[in-house]
């Protein structure tokens, strides 16, 4: 459990960090950005990752904090999970983020692990990427060439692979406020309290005046190499009036959510094989939608 040797760099500013990253990558070195270290350090200690250097962003205060910016909440990349879940702004305006963050690992991890670090790690078993996808968050990144924005739908490229280019650092995430009328829920299924999600379902749902669902957004955790939107179920839920099962025994909510696994390619691991994950996605989506509807 001892990492292979690596260099350690602690830049004094974001500009510095971008320059260090760009130089290293130009030289062909594999460098890794260190945020809270709660995912990266175990990889190093198990010698599953061999970066030549770590670039520690931990002392850059400008990357830390939550701000209410009118139509969205901005969460700095280095904001810890604990800070996120306790933030009044987050809880009031983007409660789904708070709900999901509260399920991440355990208190010790939440005090060190960071919001941006979880996103940039792009682990489909992480709880937050699915939330970002469901909420159509926008990722603000920077390199020596300047800033750019990446929509959540384009950010998670592949397993542990975010859409960060050479020399790019994630500055923060814009989480859109959805306004009134929305309900939220994050349904996490895991074997022990500290375990990763076997499957997780992030739901935002809005009813129209008549009570029928007008819009549903569903992000799935650990149902493929990246977090995925359950687009088929989202479409099927539109117009569904959630009510007790019909007199003919039909349950349109259940039927719509039975398509939650459409288009996914869930992994097989010690905790679940793909068919079980698909089943869980269907059951949990119905529960999450039900809970979000209140």
């Amino acid at each position, binding site marked *: 459990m*001892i990492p292979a*040797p690596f260099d350690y760099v602690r830049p004094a500013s974001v500009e510095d960090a971008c320059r260090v990253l760009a130089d290293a990558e130009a030289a062909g070195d594999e460098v890794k950005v260190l945020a809270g270290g709660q995912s990266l350090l175990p990889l190093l200690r198990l010698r599953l990752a061999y970066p030549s250097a770590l670039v520690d962003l931990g002392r850059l205060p400008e990357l830390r904090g939550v701000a209410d910016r009118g139509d969205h909440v901005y969460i700095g990349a280095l904001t810890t999970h604990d800070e996120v879940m306790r933030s009044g702004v987050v809880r009031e305006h983007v409660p789904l983020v708070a709900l999901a963050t509260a399920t991440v690992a355990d208190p010790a991890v939440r005090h060190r692990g960071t919001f941006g670090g979880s996103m940039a790690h792009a682990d489909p078993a992480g709880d937050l990427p699915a939330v970002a996808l469901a909420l159509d968050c926008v990722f603000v990144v920077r390199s020596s060439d300047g800033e750019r924005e990446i929509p959540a739908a384009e950010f998670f490229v592949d397993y542990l692979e975010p859409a960060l280019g050479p020399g790019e650092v994630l500055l923060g995430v814009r989480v859109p406020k959805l306004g009134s009328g929305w309900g939220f829920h994050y349904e996490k299924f895991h*074997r022990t309290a500290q*375990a990763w999600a076997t499957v997780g379902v992030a739901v935002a749902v809005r009813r129209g005046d008549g009570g029928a669902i007008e819009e549903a957004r569903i992000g799935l955790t650990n149902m493929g190499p990246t977090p995925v939107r359950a687009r088929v179920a989202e479409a099927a839920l539109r117009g569904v009036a959630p009510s007790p099962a019909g007199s003919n025994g039909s349950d349109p909510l259940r039927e719509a959510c039975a398509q939650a696994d459409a288009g996914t390619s869930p992994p097989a691991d*010690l905790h679940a*094989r793909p068919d*079980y994950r698909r089943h869980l996605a269907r059951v949990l989506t119905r529960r999450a939608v039900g809970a979000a509807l209140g």
Partner: protein
Amino acid sequence: MTEELDAGLVAGRIAESDQMSEPSAEREMGRARRRKEDARLVTGRTMWTDNIQLPGMLYVAFLRSPMAHARITGVNVSAARSRPGVVAAYSGRDLAGEQGSLPCAWPVTEDIVIPDHPPMAVDEVRYPGEAVACVVATDRYRAADALEAIAVDYEPLDPVLDMTEALAEGAPKVHEAGNRAFTWKFAGGDIDAAFRDAPVVIDRTYVQQRLIPTAMEPRAVVATTDGDGFTLYSATQIPHVLRVMLAMTTGIPEHKLRVVAPDVGGGFGSKLQVTAEEVLALLLARRLGRPVKWTESRSEGNLTVHHGRDQLQRIAVAADRDGRIRGVRVELLADMGAYLMLVTPGVPLLGAFMYNGIYKMDAYDFTCTGVFTTKMPTDAYRGAGRPEATFAIERAVDELAHELGIDPVEVRRRNWITREEFPYTTIAGLTYDSGDYEAATEKALAMFGYDELRAEQADRRERRDPVQLGIGVSTYTEMCGLAPSRVLGSLSYGAGGWEHAAVRLLPTGKVEVVTGTSPHGQGHETAWSQIAADALGVPFEDVSVLHGDTSVAHRGMDTYGSRSLVVGGVAVLAACEKVKERARELAAHLMEASADDVEFDGGRFRVRGTDEGRTIQELALAAFAAHDLPGGFEPRLDAEATFDPDNFSFPHGTHLCAVEVDTETGRCAIRSYVAVDDVGSVVNPLIVEGQVHGGIAQGVGQALFEEAVHDADGNLVTTTMADYLIPSAADLPEFTTGRTETPATSNPLGVKGVGEAGTIASTPAVVNAITDALRPYGVRDVRMPCTPERIWRALAEAEAAVPGQAPATGPAPAAVPGFAPVPTHGSTPGAAPPPAPASEPIRGFVAPATSESAPEGGAR
């Protein structure tokens, strides 16, 4: 007492019977003392082995086999030797001349195969993680880095992973002598008669999955030499046994070897071992003349701490229609792993006398075959053989109850030994000295609210609630307090089971208790202080307990098998009694009275009928001064005692578990858990409570969470705690505990031992509850650990077998008798065809049950 509990040391409800045993103000026995050792243990400000720093110390790292089974065709360590900070690097061949073979102290049969077990592999690796080379460097980081410079050439061999396949003709061999280590048989009564024409036969196969003991403190070793003698510090449970075994295997004379178990952070049997790393650390210190240290990483530990359980159990119970058990037949395959370690082959035998449980029967037949595989060796893990036995019989008795439509508690009642029948000699030949199964069960049922929960269960079944309620019963006993030396001898064990204590009265009247037990979290310092305080009439605070260092505690048999209090605590009491007799003699002399006229009360020796007396502290000083002693009286009050029990002790109890099973997701949540244990007299109820809580947690771990998994190539997949799941407090319910107290008659304290009880009792309680919840769906068993996925698949398969089956109303429908993957046995005539094969078929026994009645081995 309540205040101390409320202060938060122990979550959960206070044991109800604490009030029952409310001690008098003066008595320490029965007091819920907070543990005096905890402050240093929980803050870590103590001597854990890894905290030890010695001048010039070097650090060892081991290169471990990435293959389960391979021939080693070359190891090149020369590049590693030139890495920075590296002092030495060796292959197994480099050490072959002096490393010897790791010992097995329990040759259970005459013809047992005990393969040579080099601490570092030389020609062949036989389990993943086996050490093949090592680096010694100036710090542990350089040692770890240099491992990457070692080149090893392997020629892969076929892994041997499945016990049934391993025994088949032509199977790849783990060792030249074949894959069968031994077959051990034991029988009592006429088993054929018991099964002949039996109206009911329950025949089941259960898988005791392989577990990885997970002590909080990883293993660590420091070895040092002054050029003449050696000192080995190790995170071990058994400093005394280790010293003897190392002297026998390394050639270091026993009087030149000191072994120290500093504070040790948990063991659960995993540190009841003579490990490769301990032997190699000594050899390296001898070669290099410098102290060396090794501390394992958690992943290294998952690979190479000996594993636990891993048995395939076939149990058949023959019974009458009224539920009376006629006989029990047991066949085990026990996975030894690649080698026989200290007590590897003996572990299943510790269960051999327990498959009859608390029940009376006419006949019993037990056969166990030890099988070699290319996996880490198995050995003792909390309960060692007895959890497996209790699981099998308690699961089978539940099946019997279901088969007959009788309440599972009632079936047990019809078969158990009644309170009037003690002492009772069982069909397995053990004499249970005392017990009251009726009292423990009645108390547990009342605390649990059994009838109310049954009513709720019926309601949920009727409503077809997707969340079903299941109720599990486990009435257990165990043989512990290991052990009468005579019995160990008859079982071919290599040593005895006595324990030693010395009590020193210091000149100022303070007391040092020296114990041969070796605590690693159990609280001996507190409990032994309580025993000594009562026996000598000194304050609790005036007692110190010394342990774990063979140069301080020179005689001992160490700590395992719930033996410490039952054997070692009794030895402390016996030594105190001897001290008291010496003090009485001195007091009589000083007061010019006859010793017969001197009475002892509250720490004071008084001439009967007078006010004249001497405190024990005054006598300690008088003995030290030695100015005025009786003729021939040596100037000390100190005494030693060695206690060898006549019998095992037999804690028992009734555990009840209610689970809620979400039939949509397969998740099982424990809704409530009641444990009523009878561990005899109680020295410290707070410690007992802690042992019960931890024990239940570990048993629940086996039932729901834990499993060492190997892939098809034999690699261990569960090498981290993200893969090998153990429950934390957040995953467990509040435990409601209670006690009954039926004192043991086999020792003067009346104590029975509590270290393993919770683990033994809880696993079948949980799995019985899950099965109970799922029976209406046609599910008859779920293999452990009962993960959500396994429960979901069991439901899906039952549904596929009998489409449309749903929760029944009223009494549960009869399940299909027999066990599908074992097609040759045991269906009740006229039974429905078995359901479709389970997704993870259990490879069953290939031969029909044998019924030899002549024992080829056995206790008595």
